[in-house]
């Protein structure tokens, strides 16, 4: 099982997290200011016995190793591939230095070795194809004692591994760099002990001496690393840290301690940030060839990046990479981007783009129905500085958009698809809006922006039915049930069923023109899904609480909440009859009680269950109306 995003990644903190980070930075800055210049004064010669205590999780004295027996330090330094850590020790000799790894040649786990004078680092989930393996470029001379230190950022990439000899980073050669699965993969416990002088098979047991073995659950800074390795240039800093830790006046010692704690807090916060997968240019571009008849083993002419000849060229000086492409896309000389963008806005409002084939402006696409309008909108968009909101306003306040959606048979005959825009649009809402609108009308919608995805209601067992390892959907509770649908967690192989019923793109392939179908499954969904039943109950509740005692006024209020207009006389008659029917039906207290219990937000106990159920059922009727799911 693969966990989380694949690197390269960039952090994407939520607003709350950004605020928390800024606050931590501020507090750390304040302490730094208060401690400036406090170093105990004077200068002393010689080494100072200090190592960072912040994050220290293991400390072992070490000793001599004879190549036959390693030291088993038990279940400590329990780091997995997504953890940050640092390992350090003084070594002379050859073999496994420290590890937490199955004791076989290609075992699972992490390990650091000295072999042929080279430092080897392994993080192995599966030796052949799921591991990081690297070795130092330079060999160390075997006759000396070295300080060896390895850091790992939890990035699951070789780039996240740092190797330091005597406090200096050494150049590493990456042998394998594809690490995905944790050591504790698929819920298995990773039981190997932390070994000094061993791990990775009996033939690797250390011969020589290993001392002062330490492990931290964080990545040490370079100045700290230099200090541990006792580099002369780090002595000043080292003395200051020792002073602040042990010899300074109590309030300074306290402040220093707080600062270390805040740093840890900042690190934990940063680790909790959601990440976004990004792409990265290779240092050197690979040669690319036209593949003859598409066969991967039949390269033809060598090709270079560029833009289609029919379109404007790359702007002068733009690099031939993604940055250059980005500049080209928004170059005012390039009309295509703005046309494509405004055409999609148009589609969103009118159901059909001015160019119907919104995904295809090429020779296979359709010509625009109103080319001048498209062009004008595009230039307006560029002129406004690509102001998306302004474009929405421009479109929705236009006379065209504000026309009535009513059609006459004659008009329908002449222009069934309304391409000539002689009437207003009439299109079914997209899946997300069908749900969001119901929640909004109910007063349940939580308008919070950003943050991790949420898991609203979904029929039980859907994931479990077809996934591996019995992975199941763990539904959210409370406000997370009512976030906008764009925050709904999306498992691509088993997409949220309501979204799929209402034609949302399944996110497995790029779709810019969703279909709008009209199916019995949609009807069942709107009638029986707890999402819509609960929303209906809350609309019913609003009818009872917000519109006074008169049933007619209550019905009008509910109608308005869902359809944003008042009902006609005929409609009011239907609703009154329907309410009467439901009041009779829910005179059966058991039924009413069951019906109002649908959904996790409890019914207002002050209301009669019978009334609430009846008004809720009428609200459900409203949510199921064609007009409720249609924009006109």
């Amino acid at each position, binding site marked *: 099982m693969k966990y989380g995003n694949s690197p390269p990644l960039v952090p994407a903190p939520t607003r709350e997290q950004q605020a928390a980070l800024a606050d931590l930075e501020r507090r750390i800055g304040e302490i730094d200011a208060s401690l400036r210049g406090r170093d105990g004064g004077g200068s002393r010669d010689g080494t100072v016995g200090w190592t960072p205590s912040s994050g220290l999780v293991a400390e072992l004295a070490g000793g001599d190793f004879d190549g036959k027996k390693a030291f088993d330090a038990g279940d400590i330094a329990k780091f997995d591939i997504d953890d940050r850590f640092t390992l350090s020790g003084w070594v002379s000799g050859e073999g496994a230095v420290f590890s937490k790894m199955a004791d076989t040649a290609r075992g699972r786990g992490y390990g650091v070795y000295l072999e042929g004078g080279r430092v080897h680092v392994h993080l192995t989930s599966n030796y052949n194809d799921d591991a990081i393996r690297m070795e130092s470029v330079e060999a160390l001379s075997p006759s000396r004692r070295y300080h060896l230190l390895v850091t790992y950022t939890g990035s699951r990439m070789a780039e996240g591994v740092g190797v330091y000899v005597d406090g200096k980073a050494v150049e590493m050669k990456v042998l394998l760099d594809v690490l995905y699965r944790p050591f504790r993969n698929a819920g298995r416990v990773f039981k190997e002990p932390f070994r000094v002088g061993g791990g990775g098979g009996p033939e690797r047991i250390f011969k020589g001496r290993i001392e002062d073995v330490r492990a931290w659950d964080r990545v040490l800074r370079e100045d700290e690393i230099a200090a541990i390795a006792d580099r002369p240039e780090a002595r000043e800093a080292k003395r200051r840290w020792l002073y602040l830790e042990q010899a300074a006046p109590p309030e300074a010692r306290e402040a220093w301690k707080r600062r270390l704690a805040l740093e840890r807090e900042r690190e934990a916060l940063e680790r909790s940030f959601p990440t976004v997968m990004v792409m990265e240019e290779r240092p050197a571009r690979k040669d690319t060839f036209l593949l003859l008849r598409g066969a991967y083993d039949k390269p033809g002419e060598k090709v270079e990046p560029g833009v289609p000849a029919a379109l404007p060229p790359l702007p002068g000086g733009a690099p031939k990479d993604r940055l250059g492409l980005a500049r080209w896309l928004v170059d005012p000389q390039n009309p295509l981007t703005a046309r494509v963008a405004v055409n999609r806005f148009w589609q969103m409002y009118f159901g059909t783009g001015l160019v119907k084939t919104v995904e295809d402006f090429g020779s296979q696409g359709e010509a625009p129905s109103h080319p001048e309008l498209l062009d004008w909108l595009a230039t307006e968009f560029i002129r406004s500085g690509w102001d998306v909101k302004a474009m929405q306003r421009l479109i929705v306040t236009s006379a065209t958009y504000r026309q009535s959606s009513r059609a006459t*048979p004659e008009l*329908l005959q002449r222009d069934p698809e309304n391409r000539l825009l002689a009437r207003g649009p009439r299109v079914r809402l997209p899946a997300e809006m069908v749900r969001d609108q119901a929640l909004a009308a109910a007063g349940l919608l939580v308008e919070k922006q950003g943050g991790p995805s949420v898991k609203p209601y979904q029929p039980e067992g859907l994931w479990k039915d077809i996934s591996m390892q019995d992975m199941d959907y763990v539904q959210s509770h409370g406000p997370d049930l009512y976030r906008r649908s764009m925050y709904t967690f999306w498992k691509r192989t088993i997409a949220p069923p309501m979204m799929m019923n209402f034609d949302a793109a399944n996110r497995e392939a790029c779709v810019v023109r969703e279909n709008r179908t*009209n199916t019995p499954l949609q009807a069942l969904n709107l009638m029986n899904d707890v999402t819509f039943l609960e929303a209906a109950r809350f609309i019913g509740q609003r009818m009872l609480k917000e519109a006074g005692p008169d049933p007619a006024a209550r019905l009008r209020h509910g109608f308005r909440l869902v359809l944003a207009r008042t009902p006609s006389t005929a409609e009011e008659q239907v609703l009154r009859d329907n309410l009467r029917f439901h009041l009779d039906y829910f005179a059966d207290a058991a039924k009413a009680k069951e019906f109002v219990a649908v959904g996790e937000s409890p019914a207002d106990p002050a209301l009669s269950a019978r009334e609430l159920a009846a008004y809720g059922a009428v609200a459900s009727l409203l949510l199921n109306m064609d007009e409720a799911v249609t924009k006109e």
Partner: protein
Amino acid sequence: MNPIEEGRLLITRRHFFSRSAAGIGVAALGSLLSDQARAATHFPAKAKRVIYLFQHGAPSQLDLFDYKPDLLRRRGEDLPDSVRGGQRLTGMTAYQAKFPTAPTVFKFAPQGKSGIWLSELLPHTGKVADELAVIKTLHTEAINHDPAVTFLQTGFQLAGRPALGAWVSYGLGSENQDLPAFVVLVSQGSGGTQALADRSWGSGFLPSRYQGVKFRSGADPVLYLSNPPGYEGTARRRFLDDLGKLNQGTLEDYQDPEVATRIAQYEMAFRMQTSVPELADLSKEPESTFELYGPDARKPGSYAANCILARRLAERGVRFIQLFHRGWDQHSNLPKEIKGQCVQTDQPSAALLQDLKQRGLLEDTLVVWGGEFGRTVYSQGVLTEDNYGRDHHPRCFAVWMAGGGIQGGVSYGETDDFGYSVVKDSVDVHDLHATILHCLGVDHTRLTYKFQGRHFRLTDVAGRVVKAVLA
């Protein structure tokens, strides 16, 4: 019917055709709201519907269909390099030091009048051997489950294309007003299980009404089918009557045929609330049915129960019925695990053919049985006297077809002495798809849908009907 109503219906139908025909390139084959199937096929159809018994995880062709008696002599020998020819292997065995040839431990015997060789693991299938066309030379491009299943289901390894059943329901529409045209049933096997994905029955770029509807065992065979607690059918009827009145008003106001469609779809939803539970309820099946389909047949959600459901769906005119039975991924302990899988599937699969036949349905129902790729002749892991595993093998595997349009008692294609590569009559996945469509009266080169600037086909730019298996 009064003239106004009739006119409205006409608008609706024309509207539907205009919607579904938009950009197809060829005429849409079927009507969607038709009372009966009126599919105008490209040529006379032998089969009206398909039941695809998909064996998910890849059953071993070497232990079931592709008999290689000479391999016994080579037991344990390293697979010669000349056979493999340096082709890629999966990461699971690519680093194996040895590739010991593992002949099957199961006995084979010729079956029926046609004498098709089948393994002793398939005694019931053996009894219907004369109905089968066994293709032993199917091969695929993919070597891992997900892309291979996606390829087999949609004709392409990457996600985003419509599933075979979606193409069929798009092309031929539905024969039944009360049920979806494309129904999917999933059952769990006893062996190594791989994940399934909705895309295996998804509609891809086709409108979502063509997607497969997964029927589940339990109270709600179709999602959201049941009315909420405290709300009974009588109330739902009244609800729909009033909803119909309100929507009728909207229709009169706006003249939008979509409203008429919505009114019809709510009625169909109501009918489904009755028809689906009735369909899923096996309690009225006679004792003989359960005897025929075997001991699992009374277990809801089992492969056997799903086979009975498949027959009931076929009886009701559902166009494409696809079963997914999981658990065929035998990387290790194959002899024991495949036995379990066969106990679950052999009898029900054979029973389904017999049952369809006795009801006169087999002649116009195409039944297909098979997985997403085959398994290696060499053992994954250690080969012992009675145990071995087999890795993924895309270069050849076996499927069988039976029923409408298919000639029974045919064994098609030959593989080499090791059952490693095809030596005669190779069939690729597009060929299989072309053949299935052919049985339905559809020319696979003419069933197209325009999306993102080009006309797509289930068979891409390939596909050749395997004439030798046709009746």
